[in-house]
C-alpha cells in the first residue's frame, strides 16, 4: 500500500469468525509454551552440569550432552515454529480477508508438527542425533518435517495468492519465508549428511545454521512486527520505502552470511571475506528497519509504558539492533580470533533467540490470549512480572556470557593450561544459572496467569491503566 492511495475494503468484508480458527491459534500457543518449558529444563540441566551441580549424573536418558540438543531443537522447532504457526493462523487470514486453504489441513498440520517435534526429541534422547547444528533431527524424521513445511506453505499460500491489489509488507516476508524455510531445511539436512563431506559440507552447514535464523525465524518475526505494531499503535508504518529496503536487503544479503560461522577454517579465505562483508551489509539493512519502526512509534512513545505488547515488541527490537550490531563486529577476523568457540557466541545466540524472537512472540501472546479466550488477563501485575523478569534475565545472561567469552578467549590465547579457562569461567557459569532461573521465573508467572485466565478466575487486583487500555480489552 503505497502512501497516498486509499485501499478500499471489499464490500462484503468477511467476519472474523469465518476467517480465523481461534481454537487452533490457542492450541499452537499452548504447544509452544510446553516445548519452551522442556527447552528450559534442558538448558538448566546443561548449566548445572557446567559447574558440576548436576544432580542427575550418570543416566543415559538424562545425559546433558543429549539434553543440550533438546534445548536448542525444542526452542527452534517446538517453541518458535508452533508460536509462529499460531500467529500466522491469526494474521494471514485477517490480512488477506480469506481463510486458509483448509481448516482440516490446519488441524492435520498441528498434529503432524507435534509428531515431528516429539519424534525429534525421542530420537535425540535415544542417541540418534544427526551431526548438524540445529539439524540434529534424526535422519528418518527429516522427510516428514519437509513434507510438513510444504503443507504449511500450501495452506497459507492459498489465501495469499488469491488476495487482490498490492500486498502488504508482512505478506512479502511470509511468502519469502515459506520458500526459504523449505529450501533451507532441505539443503541443510540432506546435503552435508549424504553428499558433501568436509570443508564444503562445513560451508553448507554454515549456510544452514544462518539461514534457519535469517530466512525462517527473522522474516516471520519481522512480518509479524509489521502486522501487529501498526495495529497496536493505530498508525501506519512510517516509511514504505524503508520497508522495501529492509525486505530486499535481507533477501539479498542474509543468505550470503553463512560461512561467517566457520571463519579461520580451511574454507577458502575469499569466501570467508565475502561472508564477513555480507554480514556487515546486513547490519546496515537492519539499521534501516529499526529506523523505520522507531519512526513509526515517534510521537506515541508513551505506548512503551502503558501498552505491554508494544513494550515487548520494542524491547525485542532494541535487543535485535544490539544483536546485529554485535554481529557486525564479532564477524570480523579480529574479533573472531578472540571470541570464536567461547561463551560470547552462546550469549549472542541467547540474545537472538530469547531476547528478540521469544520477546516478540510473548508480546503477541500477551495481546492475543485475551482475544482468544474472550476475557481480560487474570492479573496485569503478573503480565508485568513476566516482562520484567524475562528482560532482566536475558540482559544479565547476555552481559555475563559475553564477558565470560572474553576471559575464555584470552585464557586460551595465553596458552595457560586448559583447566584455567574452566576455572575462570565458573563464576560466570554460576551467575548464568541464576540469570536463567530469572527467565524461568518470568515464564512461570506467565503460565500461572494464563492458567487462571483460562479457568476464568478473577483477581481482586485494582483496575490499572493497563486493564483499561486498548491492548488489554478482550
Amino acid at each position, binding site marked *: 500500500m503505497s502512501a497516498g492511495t486509499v485501499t478500499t475494503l471489499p464490500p462484503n468484508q468477511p467476519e472474523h469468525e469465518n476467517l480465523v480458527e481461534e481454537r487452533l491459534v490457542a492450541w499452537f500457543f499452548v504447544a509452544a509454551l510446553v516445548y519452551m518449558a522442556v527447552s528450559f529444563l534442558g538448558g538448566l540441566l546443561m548449566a548445572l*552440569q*557446567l*559447574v558440576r551441580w548436576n544432580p542427575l*549424573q*550418570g543416566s*543415559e536418558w538424562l*545425559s546433558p*550432552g*543429549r539434553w543440550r*540438543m533438546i534445548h536448542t531443537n525444542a526452542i527452534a522447532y517446538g517453541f518458535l515454529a508452533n508460536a509462529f504457526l499460531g500467529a500466522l493462523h491469526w494474521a494471514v487470514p485477517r490480512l488477506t480477508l480469506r481463510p486458509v486453504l483448509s481448516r482440516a489441513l490446519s488441524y492435520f498440520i498441528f498434529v503432524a508438527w507435534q509428531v515431528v517435534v516429539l519424534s525429534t526429541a525421542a530420537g535425540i534422547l535415544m542417541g540418534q*542425533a*544427526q*551431526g548438524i547444528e540445529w539439524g540434529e533431527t534424526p535422519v528418518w524424521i527429516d522427510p516428514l518435517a519437509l513434507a510438513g513445511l510444504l503443507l504449511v506453505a500450501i495452506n497459507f499460500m492459498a489465501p495469499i495468492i488469491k488476495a487482490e491489489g498490492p*500486498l502488504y509488507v508482512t505478506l*512479502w516476508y511470509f*511468502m*519469502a519465508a515459506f*520458500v*526459504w524455510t523449505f*529450501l533451507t531445511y532441505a*539443503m541443510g539436512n540432506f546435503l*552435508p*549428511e549424504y553428499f*558433501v*563431506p*568436509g*570443508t*564444503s*559440507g*562445513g*560451508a*553448507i552447514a554454515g*549456510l544452514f545454521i544462518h539461514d534457519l535464523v535469517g530466512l525462517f525465524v527473522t522474516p516471520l518475526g519481522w512480518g509479524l512486527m509489521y502486522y501487529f505494531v501498526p495495529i497496536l499503535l493505530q498508525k501506519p508504518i512510517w516509511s514504505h520505502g524503508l520497508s*522495501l529496503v529492509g525486505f530486499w536487503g535481507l*533477501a539479498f544479503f542474509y*543468505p*550470503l552470511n*553463512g*560461512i561467517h*560461522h*566457520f571463519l579461520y*577454517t*580451511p574454507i*577458502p579465505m575469499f*569466501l570467508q571475506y*565475502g*561472508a564477513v562483508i555480507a554480514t556487515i551489509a546486513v547490519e546496515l539493512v537492519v539499521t534501516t528497519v529499526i529506523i523505520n519502526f522507531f519512526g513509526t512509534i515517534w510521537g506515541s512513545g508513551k505506548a512503551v509504558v502503558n501498552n505491554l505488547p508494544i513494550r515487548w515488541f520494542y524491547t525485542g527490537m532494541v535487543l535485535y539492533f544490539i544483536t546485529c550490531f554485535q554481529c557486525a563486529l564479532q564477524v570480523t577476523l579480529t574479533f*573472531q*580470533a578472540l571470541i*570464536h*568457540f*567461547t*561463551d560470547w*557466541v552462546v550469549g549472542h545466540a541467547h540474545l537472538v533467540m530469547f531476547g528478540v524472537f521469544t520477546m516478540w512472540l510473548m508480546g503477541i501472546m500477551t495481546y492475543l490470549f485475551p482475544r482468544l479466550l474472550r476475557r481480560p488477563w487474570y492479573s496485569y501485575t503478573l503480565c508485568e512480572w513476566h516482562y520484567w523478569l524475562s528482560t532482566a534475565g536475558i540482559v544479565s545472561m547476555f552481559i555475563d556470557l559475553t564477558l565470560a567469552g572474553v576471559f575464555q*578467549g584470552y585464557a*586460551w590465547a*595465553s*596458552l595457560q593450561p586448559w*583447566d584455567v579457562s*574452566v576455572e575462570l569461567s565458573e563464576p560466570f557459569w554460576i551467575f548464568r544459572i541464576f540469570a536463567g532461573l530469572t527467565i524461568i521465573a518470568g515464564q512461570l508467572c506467565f503460565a500461572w496467569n494464563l492458567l487462571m485466565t483460562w479457568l476464568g478466575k478473577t483477581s481482586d487486583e485494582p483496575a490499572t491503566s493497563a486493564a483499561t487500555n486498548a491492548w488489554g480489552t478482550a
Partner: protein
Amino acid sequence: MFESKSGVLLIGGLIFFVFAFLSNAVVPMLMYQELPEQPTAALVNENLMYQFQDLSLRYPDQFSEHFGEATQENCVEALDLGREIYIGEGCWHCHSQFVRPVSNEADRWGPVAATPEYQNELQRPVMFGTRRVGPDLSREGGRRGNDWHAVHFYEPTSVSWKSPMPNYPWLFDGSPDKPNKRGLALITYVQWLGSWLDSYPLYEDYVPLEEQMDNPLAQ
C-alpha cells in the same frame, strides 16, 4: 516487481537463495573436486591399528566379545560406530575439531587444520564443532593412552578434577576397566583423530607396542 507476488517468490525467495547457494556452497565443492571423499576403510593407518591392538590387549574379554580380533575390518566397524556415538552424545557441541591459525592454537594443539584432512566419510557431516567447553580434539589421537580415555569417559573428574564433562557410565559394563562395545568404539574414534599426521603422537614418544608390553615401566 518489488511488491508483486512473483517478484517476492521468484527473485527474493528463489533466485537470491540459489545465488547464495551457488556462490557459497557450490564454489568450494568445485574447488575440492580433485579431493574425493575417502571411505572409512581408507582411514585406518598404522598409528590407529597400534591403538586398536592396544585396546585388544588391555581389555581382552570385552574386546574379543564385541570385536573379536584386532583386524583392519573390525577397526573400520569401531570407527564408524565411534563416530555415531561421538555425534549422538553431542561430544561435538563442546569439543571442536579444527585448529585455527590464530590465538596460538598451533602451539597448543599442533598443525593448523587443512582441507585434505576432512575429505572423508567420517567428516560427513563435518565435525568442525561450535564451542570449546573442552579442548579441541582434532590432534587428540595418541596423546593419551587408552586406559586414560576409559577412566576419563567413565568419570572425567577422576583424572581431571575440575572437568565439567558429564560421566558416561553407559559406555561401560559397570566399571572403567570394562568398556562395552560403544566404549571401545568411541575410544578408537578419539585415537583416530590426528593419527594421519606426521607429528603423531604430538607430545608423547612413540614406543612400539611389543616393546611397551615387554617392559611397561620403561617410560
